[in-house]
């Protein structure tokens, strides 16, 4: 009788431990994958060049009630291209804006989907070939990816 009880406790303990460990392992793994995706997207765009502050502005709401349609504006005077990333989306890439010779200014507005509260990142390739980065956190009340 006592033996069985001991076994029971042990099994339950180990089960709880196992579940806890699985949950712990899953969390950082997901974060790591997202980070790796962002890093890959940035690397693809910048070729590992240094990212400086200033030269690119990102306008986005502080709080977005509906993550399905969040208005954003990116601007970088003299830039040839601006890359927009959403760090907390299943796929961080949002869009890449290339400005031609007849673009009167290097700005664009659009509406994007944000799955959850997260940082939106804009990286611009400036006229001199250098890269500038900025980011802003957008708090999302209702996420815009699932159903």
């Amino acid at each position, binding site marked *: 009788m006592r033996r069985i009880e001991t076994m029971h406790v042990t099994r339950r303990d180990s089960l709880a431990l196992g579940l806890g460990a699985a949950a712990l392992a899953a969390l950082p793994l997901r974060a790591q994958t997202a980070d790796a995706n962002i890093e890959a997207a940035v690397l693809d765009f910048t070729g590992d060049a240094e990212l400086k502050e200033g030269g690119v502005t990102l306008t986005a709401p502080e709080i977005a009630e509906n993550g*399905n*349609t*969040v208005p954003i504006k990116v601007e970088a005077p003299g830039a040839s291209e601006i890359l927009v990333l*959403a760090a907390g*989306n*299943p*796929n961080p*890439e*949002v*869009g*890449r*804006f*290339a*400005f*031609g*010779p*007849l*673009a*009167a*200014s290097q*700005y*664009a*507005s*659009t*509406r*994007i*989907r*944000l799955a959850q509260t997260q940082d939106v990142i804009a990286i611009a390739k400036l006229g001199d070939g250098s890269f500038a980065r900025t980011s802003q956190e957008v708090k999302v009340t209702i996420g*815009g*990816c*699932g*159903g």
Partner: protein
Amino acid sequence: MADGVKPRVRVPDEAKAGEVIQIKTLISHPMESGQRRDDDGNLIPRSIINRFTVEFEGESVIDVAMEPAISSNPYFEFEATVPSSGSFVFTWYDDDGDVYTEEKTVTVA
């Protein structure tokens, strides 16, 4: 072709030579992200517009590479220089191979 795709663009009819004009574009399209599931739990396949370009008489104004994170009915606003009378050509490229175009003529007085 995705159902009911309809492009709309707003461009002034007239401009001065070299004038900066604002352009707004909208195209009705579901931009199915490939992340959503139907009622039976099956993943709905991705079907989006993946590129949008604007040219004036063959010269580029803007060229946008679009990902599923662009909202449904993609909207863009930007500025262009009008060097002379001519036409803006707007082109949207769908995942399914379809191409939607719209043309707007601007007269320089």
